């Protein structure tokens, strides 16, 4: 566990989470996160050696359904919510690779 009073690098976490945070939010967020993390640190008091983790309340494994072909969702309906499309068929995204733009 992080030591008591450890500073959280908010900018680093925001970059991992792909979040652009308003500058004025950062100091407050930092103190709130440090307070909450300080609170959850109490779990360090418990001896959990030999305890299996619980990932789900219901332990079901390898749940597969029959491999039966079915109608896929209509493409137009799936694309209807996209912010930007190319010729109504492809999702248009801003430039991915650096360099000159492709016309």
């Amino acid at each position, binding site marked *: 566990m992080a030591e008591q009073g450890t500073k959280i690098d908010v900018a680093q976490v925001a970059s991992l989470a792909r979040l652009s945070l308003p500058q004025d939010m950062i100091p407050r967020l930092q103190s709130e996160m440090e307070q909450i993390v300080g609170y959850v640190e109490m*779990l360090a008091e418990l001896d*959990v050696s030999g305890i299996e983790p619980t990932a789900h*309340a219901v332990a079901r494994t390898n749940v597969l359904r029959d491999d039966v072909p079915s109608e896929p969702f209509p493409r137009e309906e799936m694309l209807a919510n996209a*912010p930007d499309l190319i010729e109504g068929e492809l999702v248009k995204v801003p430039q991915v690779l650096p360099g000159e733009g492709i016309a």
Partner: protein
Amino acid sequence: MMTNSELIRLSLRDAAAALADGRTTSAALTSAFLERIQAVEPKVRALLAVNAESALAQAAASDARRAAGAPLSPFDGMPITLKDNICTKGEQCSCASKILKGFISPYDSFVTGKLKAAGCVLLGRANMDEFAMGSSCENSAYQRTANPWDLDCVPGGSSGGSAASVAALETVAALGSDTGGSIRQPAAFCGVVGLKPTYGRVSRNGLVAFASSLDQIGPLSRTVWDAAAILDLIAAHDEKDSTSLPQEPANFAADLEAFEQNPRLDGVKIGLPKEYYELEGMDPAVKQIMNDAIEVFRSLGASFVDVSLPHTKYSMACYYIIATAEASANLARFDGIRYGYRSPNATDINSTYEKSRGEGFGNEVLRRIMLGTYVLSSGYYDAYYLRAQKVRTLLRRDFQEAYKLCDFLLTPVTPAPAFHFGAKTDPLQMYLSDVFTTALNLSGDCGLSVPAAIDAASGLPVGIQLIAPAMEEKRIFRAGRAFELARAQKDFTAPLS
């Protein structure tokens, strides 16, 4: 025919009876609720969307089926509201977030499909805390829902719009979702019944995910019977949710009708978890109401045993690690690419992700994504997330040990009645108001919140919580129904003019 004022007060059960014997029609019932919505919604603000036209069309279709002698179910024509994180094809599903403004669901959730198959009228979409993260509905990006009992108080959250719409007589019943108390706590704050079913009882397909190992859809209603009947409608195995449990129809409502012949609890043993009753800062009125509830159960023939859930102290910490970790992963899908808000200020792909998310999410959602990312990040995973999953095992064992001594547990739902808007500005303080409800999301068990009394000082309702092992909803339905019939306070109609 019945008057509008009578119609809006009907329970699901009484409304079904009135429809069956022709005392009313779905059109009359639906119109009565639409009129009520028009009258009180400016004060309550429980709904993000009201489907007036489509609801009347659904009602007319239902009446035609019934007139032809072929209703789809006893609840054909019954109006119901859905929390805004449950997808209904062709309707906006925003999760009360700006990032999903304008998102139109391309398909029905499993539960929406079940309600449609039963002929229910989808009346509108209920406000909530953004992405179900909150305990007061104050985190909605769109509007502040008021508690119908006191318009200066919160309705609870995150299913606050669902609870308030039932309490304000805007609908017969509602669906909500419960990740850490989000059905039970608003139900208690608004004086209605709320059920968190066993994890896996109801499919999550088409429920926008918050914390996938904890989320569960459930009913909010006027009576325990109503909640049981709605669970009968929506509980079933779904191959599209790998955590959905194989199950036979449980016929909970029919079981209650048989039980009502002699609604006694002789031989039933009720566990009182001492850690829940020893909580510092519990409102004395809640303590008194719990004591009175214990006496009601005793008069019904039940006996009591003290039990211990020794890891209770750690449940909030465990919950906030697991819930935020899962949320940070689930909410990664909102990236401005395929659906939802895309920032006009972005210049390349990374700034599209970062600005769309930063501008689209509200503060509480940002905070939880940040916390979740932190506890999952390299070097911290074992210390936080993995450790929390191990503590989750300990918490589950606590419940399993307690059930060896009793049939179900009786606890408060919240440490105090509904609070005023703006009363809890500190996030940690807000989180701790869920102290009695989060543990059973971690354990996966079922929990029922039933109105118990009205706090004399504040005039606000207070609820009790009944907790049973996974798949044992029948026990808490029976006990909740017996309690409902025996409690001193009969009327839980909010004094909303």
